[in-house]
């Protein structure tokens, strides 16, 4: 059973990596968007395999559905005038990009590796045994846990978020919606 869990996890992880790489390197923007949507959905599925039901559901609802629609619309609006090929043509830039990514990766490994030492105390070591730690981490993504966090600890950001969304609506109304005269 444990083996199957890991296998499914690895399949989704591989899908995320491949689809996001393809989204960057695809020649046509339509392919880019499609593979980005695949990436969003597999991230959602990945959360579900880790029993983070709420985060998985929100990932699928917002990214898999909402943001994908926005992306598709954005292409439909620009349509014919957009450049035909999006392929990164300048070899120097591609090379520099790879160098940058590799540098960042090595910095990351250099900085993180001491903490990944199994002998060092993990973030959740206060729970006692390893199984207890796993069980408590498993609680994190569930709707119950997140509801408790939002409504007991993060009340302030939650209410601020409503104002943020309101500002978003007002801003959309002002920026994208023309006045009545434009009709």
């Amino acid at each position, binding site marked *: 059973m444990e083996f199957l869990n890991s296998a499914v996890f690895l399949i989704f992880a591989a899908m995320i990596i491949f689809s996001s790489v393809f989204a960057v390197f695809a020649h046509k923007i339509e392919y880019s968007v499609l593979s980005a949507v695949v990436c969003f959905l597999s991230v959602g599925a990945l959360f579900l395999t880790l029993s983070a039901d709420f985060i998985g559901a929100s990932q699928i609802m917002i990214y898999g559905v909402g943001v994908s629609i926005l992306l598709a619309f954005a292409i439909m609006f620009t349509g014919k005038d957009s450049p035909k090929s999006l392929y990164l043509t300048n070899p120097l830039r591609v090379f520099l990009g790879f160098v940058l990514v590799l540098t960042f990766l090595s910095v990351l490994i250099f900085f993180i590796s001491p903490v990944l030492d199994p002998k060092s105390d993990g973030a959740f070591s206060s729970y006692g045994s390893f199984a207890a730690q796993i069980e408590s981490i498993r609680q994190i993504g569930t709707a119950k846990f997140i509801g408790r966090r939002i409504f007991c*600890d993060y009340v302030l950001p939650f209410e601020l978020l409503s*104002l943020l969304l*309101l500002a*978003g609506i007002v801003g959309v109304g*002002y920026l994208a919606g023309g006045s009545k005269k434009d009709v």
Partner: protein
Amino acid sequence: MEFAADIKNLMMPEIILFVGALLLCFIGILTDKAYKRVFSIVVLMLGLSFLMCLQLDTDTVSMAFGGSFLISKFTVFFKELILAGTISTIFLSDKYIKQNQKSVAEFYMLLFVAALGGMILVSSRDFITMFVALETLSISSYILSGFIKEKNSQEATLKYLVTGCVASAVILYGVSLLYGMSGSLRFDVIFAAIKSASMFNIAALSGTLVISGLCFKLATIPFYNWAPDVYEKSPLAVSAFLSTVSKVAGFGIIIRLVSELFNGIWILYLVLGLIALVSMAIGNLLGLCEENVKRLMAYSSIAHAGYILAVLALGSTLSLSSAVFYIITYLLMNFAAWSCLEVLDNGDGVTTESLKGLAYKRPVLAFCMVSAFASLAGLPIFVGFFSKFYLFQAIVFAGFLLYPFLCFVLLNSLIALYYYFKVIRAMFDEQESEQTVFWSKRLAVVLVFSTVMVLLTGIFSSPVITYSQQIAQSQMPAVIQYEAIKGTYFDNPRPISVR
């Protein structure tokens, strides 16, 4: 109810802004036209919020909402700065409002939301509150910067938006590393984890990411390139808001992060110093060949943010008090300069060409402009001189190893003299060019007030310096006050009230 008491005692300034934003949205629903009393409502609300800030008890450090919101002398002081800046912005926006009588309530509402985001940002004590507040400030700033519906303006807004998204992603990356290593998002818990476990490296890396992401708010490197375009193309009041209030909020949270969370991580001070040096060099060098005064203000603000970060990198109480003093004076000088530009702006922007002969035609306005720009340049008798002097003093006291650093900062202020003087010289040019000016009572209020403050604090700077020393001293031992609250979210979740 515990929360209700928190709200009543500690959060009144924010609640007033929250209610004010909803009220303005409601006014926006009722009417499309400029509502006559809207201005007085807005100023009344902001003034009330300011008064509420003043009457908060800041002698002791207190926390609201289970420790995610911090009230201390330092945070309340930054809130007062933000509110004062917002009120000045509202007065400054008079010309824009009069010329475009559309969506006035929305404009004010977004300013309210941005100010609220800034206020919660400076007193946030966990990363979720910090991030939501930061996004509230950012998103309303994006919308405000695009308030002129014109192609170039929208391009600038898009640049601002994309840069901001990258910056947010960088911050989130740093935060996720910290969360993965400590299991909590709260500053005090992360601080304890950094101290106890071998987390120095990871804290240095994620601190670098978080701080460089926050540098987007300060318009320093690595996220500075939006500033000139946005300052040029947004409504001028919004540019003033972005270059003052938004920066003050950014400095507030950076100072708090460096002194509370990443205390003792020397790599981070190095990074701050590097950011400071490169951004002041970039700001001053790019400013040299700029003719458009609004863009010049953007480069100057990049350089000024660099100066402030340079003293923050020293990490002593003296350097923090000089930074606080610099922030206060920067706010005054910038409002003086922006209000002069608002008077002069005829829609095509202000260039050194269009300023020619101003000193002979309109001596009073030219005097205000000279005092603002001379102050920004750091000339004696104006307040800018004292803030620069205090800054150099902080660097000198930090030890002789930093003398090359000091020389670099001095060299930069000398380079900056050139472009400030280009503006001043243009005003005394014999050849005169046509200027149309716009006066209104509200604009005159902010112009006169900020100019008088620039002159007054230049002459009597010692009370302000003493005050900023108090603020700095109240912030420096912040770490010690944190020891009171222990435990993580996980082993000590807040009890749910069962009914």
